[in-house]
């Protein structure tokens, strides 16, 4: 697990419509948070290679950032781009649901 709050992948500065800006909110290095980060990395590598950025925000260090994205649950993954904003909470262990939540797979009826 890398140091949280660092950017995991350098991202191009341009506003590419097919660019994925993701934020993972955590609170310290709890099991849930570590699992979530791992799961997220795997999913991104597999489905979004080269066109994503993950920002990890530790609310214990920056509590004021919690209100911006209306964070209640930990961990929370926020898809800031592409719009609309999506939120996924939990340790992201259910890959299917993560993909649905990120709109990478159509919602099952």
């Amino acid at each position, binding site marked *: 697990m890398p140091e949280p709050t660092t950017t995991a992948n350098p991202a191009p500065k341009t506003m590419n419509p097919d660019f994925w800006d993701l934020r993972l909110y955590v609170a310290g290095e709890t099991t849930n948070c570590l699992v979530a980060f791992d799961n997220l990395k795997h999913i991104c590598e597999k489905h979004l290679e080269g066109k994503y950025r993950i920002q990890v925000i530790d609310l214990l260090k920056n509590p004021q950032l919690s209100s911006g994205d209306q964070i*209640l649950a930990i961990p929370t993954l926020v898809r800031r781009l592409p719009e609309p904003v999506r939120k996924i909470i939990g340790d992201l262990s259910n890959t299917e649901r993560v993909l649905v939540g990120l709109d990478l797979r159509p919602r099952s009826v």
Partner: protein
Amino acid sequence: MKSGRNIELAAPASPGAVKTALAKCPTGIRGLDEITQGGLPQGRPTLVCGGAGCGKTLLGIEFLVHGAVDYEEPGVLMAFEESESELGANVTSLGMDLPRLVRENKLRIDSVRVERSEIQETGDYDLGGLFVRLGAAIDSIGAKRLVLDTVEVLFSGLSNHAIVRSELRRLFGWLKEKGVTAIITGERGDGTMTRYGLEEYVADCVIVLDNRVLDQLCTRRLRVVKYRGSAHGTNEYPFLVGKTGISVLPITSMGLEYQASTKRVSTGVPRLDSMLGSQGYYLGSSVLISGAAGSGKTSLAAAFVHAACQRGEKCLYLAFEESPSQIMRNMQSIGFSLEPFVKKGLLQYQATRPSNEGLESHLARIEGLVHAFQPSAVIVDPVTSLLAVGDAPEVKSALARLTDLLKGRGVTALYTSLTAGGDSPEQSEVGISSLMDTWLLVRNLESEGERNRGLYILKSRGMSHSNQVREFVLSGKGIQLLDVYTGSGKVLTGAARLAQEERARAEEEAHQQEMAAKRAEIERRRAETAAQIESLRAALKSEDRELTQLAAAAAARQKGITRGRADLSRSRMADSDSATVAGGTDGR
């Protein structure tokens, strides 16, 4: 006074003893602190629950605002349903300036939005974000108070209720550790206090708010269901959301502990004062004026108000049937000019239709007015119109509490009561008359095609009072009480009284004339007699004179005889014997 002290001693749980047992956090909400004997449990969460529109959020905000303004305890409001600007706008009308408090770092408002449709749940999570946000908000201003409004939104926003429950349990434990006094609001559930059973987690103090509609009238009520480690009022107390926020009325908790004053106040009608032991009503007593329509109850009330305001005392006039301007116009016509007192701020009118609100709300409003205006007299005109919003026992109980409330403050209360046409006036008032100290009855006396007003004092506790009927006359000169004509076994009033008086006057005059004539006659006879006496006396005098003359003549004659006899004897040379005899006769 003595009995009052006894009751006080017998009262359970003096507030001082409770305070040492459990630290309390005053809410600053009028009435609530009295019911809870000091406030909410300090450093612990309190659950406030009730249906929609009960005033839960308002109670929470007031708790924070009072804390920030009056007790120097900053507070945090975490709102799950409304945004900061919405909340601010909602309470601005109640005189609370949330943005200013936020600027002054006395208040933090954090609105949390939970939208189920935006959230996808995958796997295990906790509510650490909420804790972080709360912790940050509390620490940023050193908050001592917290309101979570309504935390139940989490249940509808998150599907894993097991996690929400365990996290809430953790949250309340964490809040206790932090030592903040918290209010958690909850929506009322079906058959349970809250929809999601929050009362399980918040077990220290539970307050239930209620908004009940009865006969189309809505009354808000508050009840402290439980308060661990402290005595509290257990009744349902009506509360009001007024211009200054919530006020709860622990009117039901009042006892008969008030002090009785020996001071007296004028009734505004001098003759009535003299009927009431020459001094008028007792200060702080309850006065009932009952009578049929148009018998002059309001006029008597106006006389009292006028007199009180002239003494510089404040009066509160609660009118249930007439508008203030109408009352003032009508009272002007009998010489009571009340408008200047209104302008001076001595007289305050409060006119409402009884059907505007429920009985409890009326009471609550009156209590609020009395508290704010601090009058020395309150007029309720007429008290019987409250029957429109409650049945007789309810009105009686409400009036008993109102009487307690006013007496407890030493406020003189004057109630007018309209008696229905057919009823006997003494009977229909039984419900409230026992609460009253002085009871005046204005009665229409009907005779010879005329209605006149008669005024009686049915009772007046603690003073000697007249037992007589007075005729009660309203005119441009004000109120006059006149003696009724009670001669020849009848009570006469009005024109009959005037006619009777006229008749009596005529009779008296005739009698006077007769007497004068008699006197003249006697005078004449006496003069006659005197004249007779005079003439008799003259006659007597002349008789006397005649008698004297007669005697003188007789004496002269005797002298002549004696002298003649002496001459004779001398001439006859009589002896000495004869001379002696003659001398003896002379000496006789």
